[in-house]
């Protein structure tokens, strides 16, 4: 695997996945994440019905978008990995319609809407890359709907693990076949629309088939092509272009 960028900024790495950026563009993106805060694991970054605080940028750790029913049932509908941003036009909203929580301790930055608007106006390549990232977020949500609606238990997990491998590789946080997955079985259940019992059984079946292995929080995919084939994983929706068309 060829490393795309040596930038320490996951945002720069991610955006360079959508096209080349100038030094100025890179530095503009790096400066977006300079005012940071650290948030503990299992806490809310954003709560439903609250006023938006700004545009969220995840720099370290993993977070997720979710909605809850009154009875406590939760559906997780997106993962935010380093380099991922919350809604770009959140400033148009009076109140949030969903929450964002953390799986692990996260380092995040809050970007002001007017600051981002100014960057988008003055740096067309950055504007293009940011727009691409929004399209990819929407495409990923469609893929997750397909996952929950049209795949059986082990295929859902196989698809999620295949997607995360690629997304984390883009930002330099996965090797060829492994990454840190700070997510419990209950959280995987809420992501894939299954019970924790079915998640546990499915993980056992994936291990039995020699496809994955967990060592603590590290997930190793022992046979990447076989896992992708099981999930019918087709990475076109991540729009990584020629760089990672494999």
């Amino acid at each position: 695997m060829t490393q795309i960028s040596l930038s320490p900024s996951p945002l720069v790495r991610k955006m360079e996945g959508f096209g080349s950026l100038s030094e100025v563009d890179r530095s503009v993106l790096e400066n977006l994440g300079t005012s940071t805060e650290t948030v503990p694991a299992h806490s809310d970054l954003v709560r439903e019905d609250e006023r938006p605080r700004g545009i969220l940028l995840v720099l370290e750790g993993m977070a997720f978008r979710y909605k809850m029913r009154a009875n406590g049932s939760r559906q997780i509908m997106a993962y935010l990995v380093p380099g991922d941003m919350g809604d770009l036009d959140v400033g148009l909203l009076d109140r949030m319609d969903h929450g964002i929580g953390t799986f692990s301790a996260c380092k995040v930055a809050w970007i002001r809407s007017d600051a981002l608007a100014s960057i988008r106006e003055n740096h067309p390549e950055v504007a293009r890359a940011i727009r691409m990232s929004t399209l990819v977020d929407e495409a990923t949500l469609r893929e997750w709907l397909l996952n929950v609606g049209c795949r059986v238990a082990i295929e859902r997990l196989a698809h999620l693990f295949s997607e995360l491998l690629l997304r984390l590789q883009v930002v330099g946080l996965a090797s060829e076949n492994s990454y840190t997955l700070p997510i419990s079985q209950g959280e995987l259940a809420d992501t894939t629309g299954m019970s924790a019992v079915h998640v546990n059984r499915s993980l056992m079946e994936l291990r039995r088939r020699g496809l994955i292995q967990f060592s603590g929080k590290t997930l190793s995919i022992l046979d990447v092509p076989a896992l992708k084939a099981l999930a019918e994983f087709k990475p076109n929706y991540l729009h990584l272009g020629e760089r990672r068309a494999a």
Partner: protein
Amino acid sequence: MSLRLQPVRVETGSGDEDGRLVFRDDALIALLVRLSDNHDADSGKWFLEAGFGCVAQERNPLFEDLEQAQAWFATR
């Protein structure tokens, strides 16, 4: 109204095989499965593998034992 539990072996594709068909009067309303030793802290608990009609759930619950499960069915 009476609840009746009938032992059944269930092919879940895992080690969880010990099941009970749950009948209310003559109608099948649920399938319970006892979780095997592969489920850490939940081993030995009874899982609502499938619930029909008024016992259908969006996320199926676990019960400590069959008595607790039957008490739950009685409330549905």
